[in-house]
């Protein structure tokens, strides 16, 4: 009873890491604390479910449809809903409070729409549910595939951010939005781009998660919460931190669920969060001083 939860935990942790990377972009670069973040994940899961059952589209091809769509929707959300708040905000704290409130409202709107369409029932679909043997442990092929895709997407994002001009601009804005303007970076465009990228990442997470987990219209909040905790744990704006913290969270949850009780996973998550807050509030890899 060690290898199996280990593999499951790594898969789950990979999903958390991917989702948290998007959130850390939105919060670190665009400075928007997005409480409706997980709703995009659920919407993407439902979109892929619908494409798969109605049109017979392979969920992995669904990625190519859903992710760009989420990117555009997130970009529009930023331009239409959040930019007025950015303009209105006098300080960074004021923007934080306003964005928390606005996206909290958005959470209920999006969740409400999905509840009207799909109801509160749990959904899942069967895609590549073939047992595969890895190191003597049987695991469903869709989980391994999801993990592989998450790794590829995460790596691509990391390289994009560290090796390209546009990525460097985004990181510059994350470090200091005022000074970034001095080196001719359009901060608002960069923020919109980071917010949209975050939306695309969480949609990718939603598609991958839907391949092996059951989901309903209400679970977005749980993903938002876990992503927030991972972001804080890894240090805001820190991609590698998000990866490590996501894996820690996924592994802890799986081991608690297998060895102790599935009903206590959230308690485990919160215990980790509490310890981080008490010991290292700047995050595992964050710089101190904020």
């Amino acid at each position, binding site marked *: 009873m060690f290898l199996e939860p280990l593999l499951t935990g790594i898969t789950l942790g990979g999903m958390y890491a991917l989702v948290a990377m998007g959130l850390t972009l939105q919060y670190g670069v665009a400075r928007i604390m997005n409480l409706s973040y997980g709703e995009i994940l659920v919407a993407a899961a439902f979109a892929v479910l619908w494409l798969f059952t109605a049109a017979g589209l392979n969920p992995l091809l669904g990625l190519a449809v859903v992710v760009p769509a989420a990117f555009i929707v997130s970009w529009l959300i930023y331009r239409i809903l959040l930019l007025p708040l950015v303009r209105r905000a006098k300080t960074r704290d004021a923007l934080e409070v306003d964005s928390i409130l606005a996206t*909290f*409202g958005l959470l209920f*709107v999006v969740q409400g729409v999905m509840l009207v369409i799909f109801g509160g029932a749990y959904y899942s679909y069967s895609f590549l549910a073939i047992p595969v043997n890895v190191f003597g442990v049987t695991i469903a092929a869709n989980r391994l595939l999801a993990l592989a895709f998450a790794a590829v997407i995460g790596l691509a994002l990391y390289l994009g951010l560290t090796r390209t001009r546009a990525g460097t601009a985004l990181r510059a804005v994350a470090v200091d939005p005022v000074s970034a303007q001095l080196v001719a970076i359009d901060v608002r465009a960069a923020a919109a781009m980071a917010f949209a990228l975050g939306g695309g990442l969480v949609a990718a997470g939603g598609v991958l998660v839907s391949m092996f987990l059951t989901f309903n219209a209400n679970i977005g909040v749980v993903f938002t919460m876990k992503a927030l905790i991972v972001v804080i744990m890894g240090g805001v704006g820190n991609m590698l931190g998000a990866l490590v913290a996501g894996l820690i969270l996924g592994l802890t949850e799986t081991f608690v669920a297998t060895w102790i009780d599935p009903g206590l996973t959230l308690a485990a998550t919160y215990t980790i969060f509490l310890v981080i807050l008490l010991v290292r509030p700047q995050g595992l890899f964050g710089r101190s001083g*904020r």
Partner: protein
Amino acid sequence: MMLSLPVKLIGTAALVALLACVPMVADGYRLSLAISLLNYTVLATAWALFSGPTRYVSLATVAFFGIGVYTVAVLGEVLAWPLVLLIALGLGMFVALIVGLATLRLSGVYFVIFTFGLAELVRQLVTWFEVNITRTLGRYVFLDVTTDQIYWQLLGLTVLVFVAGILIRRSRLGLALRVIGDDETVARHIGINTTAAKVALFVLSASFMTLCGAIMAPRWSYIDPAIAFNPVTSFQVLIMALLGGVHRLYGPLLGVVPLTLLFEFLLANFPNHFSILIGIAFMLIVYAIPQGIAGLLEKLTKRKGAAS
């Protein structure tokens, strides 16, 4: 329009006495409406008590409310009523103290994130406790508490919240909190123990929410964790407080009255679209009237004063 203190006191006493007579004249529907008005008044005012001056957005109202409800569900038939209330109060304050000590010494974001999932965490813990230890998920509450008594208790609690609010405003703690809300760094520099002030107020605010839940519990005859810790409650309280305005003690009340009536109407007519509609209403408030009705009124009266 400044009234002298005795006039204010007599006026308030008369108002409370008048409100206390409501159960004698109102029919069942109106009384239950009055109870929800008082319920939300307590919750929204208690919310604004902490979040107004400090500007820390708490999303955990229902965590404390639910603790109150569930304490009554578990202990209501075993112990005497005042003792049950006292235990609920103790539990609520204990949880608030832990949350406050862990997050309030840091910046506001940590607090928001922690409160965002707190209700869900408590709900899961209660569910786990009930399933594994007491083996009863969902409880029937048959208490000898009449609707009239619930109303009177809530009215008493409402008076207490307002008295607490007035006293805090006039105390050193109130002044300290306003400085914290304006600039926390300055507050620390002039020697305010910001963490202690914030934690104290958060615990106070949470204790009112817990008591409110405990008093409201006999309204349901069946309680399970999903009912007690319904996230929509936190959301409703937040909207009401923001619509009314959080910088004045009476502010939330201005939001509670119209929105309780609106929610009642929406729930009766569009039960399936309820969460969409309140979400839209909330966003309208955030965008259009960020200072709330109280802020709007003040701006209007100030402008009038300047013109004359």
